């Protein structure tokens, strides 16, 4: 176990102990260094700072956890239920007062450094409801299987983010006309402990960075960002794979070429430029960076496995989201896709917010049913029933969500 890992484990336990016994972390800091937490093994950390026990943990090093579908039923995803996709180890000491964001790069007119206080005072504070979804959400279903965290349906959430518009800050720095891409660097560290390696350093095309809803955020649902979701500062880009939304944000580079940081190359967050048969070997040069995420929906009520009587109506609810301007229709089917019925659909709070859908469903006779949901966006994109195009790393699975329901006499 390397030193950074030890420190992080120690830190996580101290944090959870802090909240467990209702004392601030400073009390836990009295813990003598040599005690080594009574020889606690890393797998004893079944609790993660700021996260609900109800999360499904896919990996504890780095921490990756998703939210069971029925716990995403709220209009906005609570901070302790928001999924975590970490590539490295989060910084174990964060001083929000001395934290700085540096903006520089080949296509930056100047280099500027901002404290969080300066960001707050210098630029307009804005809030947006933005959906973040991991590019690999749904990977578990691909066949042949794709390597990596086997996300099922819960690497998605929608929160109210508060911060400043990225474009306001970029304009203050000055963006040269040859700017192509924006890259980020965070304070998280590589799993190997090698300080020269970045766990992840991705970004977005400059046009995406300049959208109104592209943010540098310090708050999630009117509270500090959770430690595992980037505290104290992060990027938030709705509609793009969540890996673009850099956490523990320390530096932004304005590039005159496509950013070439960690996980921008190879098969990471890239899919074949042209469709390939399942299981194909695809050369790096034939892989293209994922930009817009596909239209998708999730049934969040009831939890799969619900049993009701044949004379009862089943309330059905969920969310639908897209990288297009808005969702225009959500339908459900109880007969394996032969017939589809339209649900009630709420308007979007803003672009990239998920939209709630709901309806009541009657079943004709006792038996086993599956309820399937399918969303359509304003550009007429909809969801496949089978898996969409196979790709080596299993990204972009937007096949319709299915729950099982049993109807009794």
């Amino acid at each position, binding site marked *: *176990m390397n030193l950074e890992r030890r420190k992080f484990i120690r830190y996580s336990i101290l944090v*959870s*102990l802090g909240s*467990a*016994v209702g004392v601030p972390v400073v009390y*836990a800091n*009295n*813990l*003598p260094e040599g*005690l080594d*937490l*009574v*020889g*606690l*093994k890393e*797998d*004893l950390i*079944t*609790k993660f700072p700021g996260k609900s*026990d109800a999360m499904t*943990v*896919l*990996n*504890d*090093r780095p921490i990756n956890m998703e939210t069971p579908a029925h716990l995403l039923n709220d209009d906005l995803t609570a901070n302790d239920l928001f999924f975590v996709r970490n590539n490295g180890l989060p910084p174990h000491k964060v001083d929000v007062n001395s934290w700085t964001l540096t903006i520089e790069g080949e296509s930056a007119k100047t280099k500027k450094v901002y404290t969080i206080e300066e960001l707050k005072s210098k630029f307009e504070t804005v809030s947006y409801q933005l959906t973040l979804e991991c590019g690999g959400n749904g990977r578990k*279903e691909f*066949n*042949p*299987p794709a*390597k*990596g*965290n*086997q996300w099922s349906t819960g690497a998605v959430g929608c929160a109210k983010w508060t911060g400043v518009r990225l474009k306001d800050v970029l304009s203050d720095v000055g963006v040269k006309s040859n700017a192509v891409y924006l890259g980020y660097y965070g304070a998280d560290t590589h*799993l*190997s402990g*090698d300080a020269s390696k970045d766990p992840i350093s991705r970004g977005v095309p400059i046009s995406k960075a300049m959208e109104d809803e592209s943010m540098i955020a310090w708050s999630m649902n009117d509270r500090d960002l959770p430690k595992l979701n980037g505290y104290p500062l992060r990027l938030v880009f709705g509609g793009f794979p969540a890996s673009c939304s850099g956490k523990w944000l320390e530096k932004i580079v304005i590039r005159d070429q496509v950013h070439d940081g960690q996980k921008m190359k190879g098969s990471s967050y890239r899919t074949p430029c042209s469709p390939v048969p399942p299981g194909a070997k695809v050369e790096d040069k034939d892989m293209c960076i994922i930009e817009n995420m596909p239209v998708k929906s999730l049934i969040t009520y*009831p*939890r*799969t*496995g*619900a*049993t*009701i009587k044949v004379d*009862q*109506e*089943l*309330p059905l609810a969920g969310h639908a989201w897209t990288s297009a301007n808005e969702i225009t229709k959500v339908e459900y089917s109880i007969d394996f896709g032969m017939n589809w019925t339209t649900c009630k659909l709420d308007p979007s709070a803003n672009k990239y917010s998920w939209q709630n859908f709901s309806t009541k469903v009657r079943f004709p006779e006792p038996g086993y049913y*599956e309820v399937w949901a399918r969303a359509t966006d304003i550009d007429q994109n909809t969801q496949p*029933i*089978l*898996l969409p195009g196979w790709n080596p790393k299993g990204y972009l699975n937007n*096949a319709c969500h*299915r729950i*099982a329901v*049993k109807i009794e006499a």
Partner: protein
Amino acid sequence: MEHHDFETDGLWRSFLTLLHVAIVLVLLGLVFALSEKTINEYLNRPTFSKEHLEESLRKRGIARAVERQDDWGLIENGIHVKTGLKNDENLQLIISSCTSCHSAKLITQNRATRSGWRQMIEWMQATQGLPDLGQAEPKILDYLAKHYAPEQIGRRANLNMAEIEWYILNLEETE
């Protein structure tokens, strides 16, 4: 008389002043006596002991994990409890080769053919600093290809009936 009265008056005043001072002192003493326990408790507050920590962890409902830490080699139903890996003669080799760098969950949740697992090892060697595995590599690949091979699920698998927990949905509350 007036002079005498004056003197008596002065003595009386001095006595009253002394009495006040005494009362204040007694009160201060009482306050100190009452808070001494608290102050001492604060000064001698317990440092983190193993028991204290375990109690805190137990409060958080993870007592099982604490108790289980001694069962390093425990195998239940063919599964190594500590890591969740399937047990066979190469288990220790897998634990020592893989889990010093990453979670065993990264193995148990993935499925691949022998060549697919080899590609992952090559990727770790190329990008994550994994050294050459030498003679251990074929054994590691045997283990992975045997226990974590892909299943033929077609274009989309059925919902996993074994995973579904059936429950009666109480609609009274929502209606």
